[in-house]
């Protein structure tokens, strides 16, 4: 069981007032808030051990390097990667996807196919479109149904020997759908295709087991799991990381450099050119520790409760429609009210202290599918409360009255 009052006390920002009202933060899909332990760890790093890593012989550099590598190990354990060097620190999910899409430019040829899904965030569409433009490969899209679920029978039909990589999100950012990625991974592997999982929206709610999933790549951002912005992880199977060329050139990623020839450093450094976000990388480990202390089983059970509660409360509002009604979904509610623009509702409830996302959620193809300009998205985290949901529902009702 999760002690919500104790948890809420861990997050200093939750006591903020916005527009004179207590903050109700339901934009967790965009970024999570940070617990005090994470904020303190950032300060502690800069006050006590700040130094550049992997190059100094001096004590501070050693301490910083050790802390950075300890964090890598924590992440390895968290996602159950086989080796620590399969965990690459990145600036975020987008960075991870681009690194792999860029690497595949050396593998793909004209006529090959790259498969994405109709549920993707723009960051898991655009890098692959760029790759296709560069290589002459074709972008193929797994369609979705009205509930916001991928149509697996169509996916089966689209797969062929031409499919070189399949890239889908674990959980949809716009609708909250939990995708059957194990099925997708296994099926794609039968055709020799690699699989990348965009885990950005999944990692706040669950602990991915990359070996069990058998995905070739799994990417996520640190800022959505209580970590600092500008942090992220690219997990890749060793064989793939060895096979792909590095994404960026620079310091840290080399073994030897001469003007005739440079040889690359071993994993993971091959993919970590330049001075990384050292504090961020270290503190991401602190954030993961914190989440594991709360416990993902507790988080899931509690968030499910919030989702059910909010869904039933919202559906009491006449004319309200929820988009994304998949059987398997996480604590995200995307909705509209008949005849009212999502932007108007978002603006008015902001005045009442409530933070939600409005718009297309960087997933325009989904909005086009439903023929809507956007939605209002409330995304809940384990530190949200039922009382906040009550305040939110009342605010939506008030906005509806004002705008009707």
């Amino acid at each position: 069981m999760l002690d919500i009052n104790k948890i809420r006390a861990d997050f200093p920002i939750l006591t903020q007032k916005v527009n004179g009202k207590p903050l109700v933060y339901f934009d967790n899909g965009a970024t999570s808030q940070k617990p005090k332990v994470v904020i303190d760890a950032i300060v502690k790093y800069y006050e006590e051990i700040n130094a550049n890593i992997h190059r100094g012989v001096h004590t501070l550099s050693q301490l910083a390097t050790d802390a950075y590598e300890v964090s890598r190990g924590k992440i390895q354990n968290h996602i159950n990667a086989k080796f620590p060097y399969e965990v690459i620190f990145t600036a975020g999910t987008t960075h991870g996807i681009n690194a792999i899409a860029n690497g595949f430019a050396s593998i793909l040829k004209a006529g090959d196919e790259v498969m994405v899904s109709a549920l993707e965030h723009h960051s898991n569409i655009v890098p692959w479109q760029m790759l296709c433009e560069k290589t002459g490969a074709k972008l193929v899209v797994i369609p979705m149904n009205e509930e916001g679920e991928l149509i697996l029978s169509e996916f089966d039909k689209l797969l062929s020997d031409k499919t070189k990589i399949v890239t889908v999100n674990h959980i949809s950012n716009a609708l909250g759908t939990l995708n059957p990625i194990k099925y997708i991974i296994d099926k794609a592997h039968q055709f020799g295709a690699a699989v990348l999982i965009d885990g950005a929206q999944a990692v706040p709610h669950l602990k991915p087991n990359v070996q069990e999933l058998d995905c070739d790549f799994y990417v996520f951002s640190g800022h959505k799991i209580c970590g600092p912005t500008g942090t992220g992880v690219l997990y890749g199977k060793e064989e793939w990381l060895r096979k792909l060329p590095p994404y960026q050139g620079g310091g840290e990623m080399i073994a030897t450099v001469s003007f005739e020839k440079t040889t690359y450093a071993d994993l993971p450094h091959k993919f970590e050119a330049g001075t990384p976000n050292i504090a961020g990388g270290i503190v991401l480990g602190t954030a993961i520790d914190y989440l594991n202390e709360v416990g993902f089983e507790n988080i899931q059970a509690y968030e499910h409760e919030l989702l059910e509660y909010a869904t039933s409360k919202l559906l009491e509002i006449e004319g309200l429609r929820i988009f994304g009604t998949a059987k398997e979904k996480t604590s995200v509610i995307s909705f509209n009210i008949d005849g009212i623009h999502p932007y108007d509702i978002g603006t008015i409830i902001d005045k009442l202290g409530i933070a939600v996302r409005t718009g297309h959620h960087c997933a325009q193809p989904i909005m086009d599918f439903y023929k809507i300009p956007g939605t209002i998205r409330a995304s809940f985290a384990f530190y949200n409360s039922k009382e906040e949901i009550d305040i939110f529902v009342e605010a939506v009702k008030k906005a509806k009255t004002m705008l009707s």
Partner: protein
Amino acid sequence: MTIKEIQEEIVDEFSMFDDWMQRYEYIIDLGKSLPLIDEKYKTEDNIIKGCQSKVWVHGEQNDDKIVFTADSDAILTKGIIAILIRAFSNQKASDILEANTDFIDEIGLKEHLSPTRANGLVSMIKEIKMYALAFNAKN
């Protein structure tokens, strides 16, 4: 009336409101009453893609003045458009070019004209100025 005079009048009107709720209710009413842009001008060419809300704006010459009509798919945006149209429409190009939008701050709607707001209003003002610029160059 000059643009300045109209803006002062609007500021005056808004000073009657005690809180944001009254201001917003007024904007919503304005949004509902704004004469819609002629359907034929709601074209791709006239659309300002604001990311969140769409804005259509059309300018037309009327003797030595420019008349603007506009619309939006979001009602708050549309209400603020009504205020902007009231200030800038049916004015001389040179006056439009000289005028600013500081009065929007004074009526407590500053955040709606923030470039990060993504509602199309900042681009709409730019568009109005562009019309005036083109009009000036032509005459």
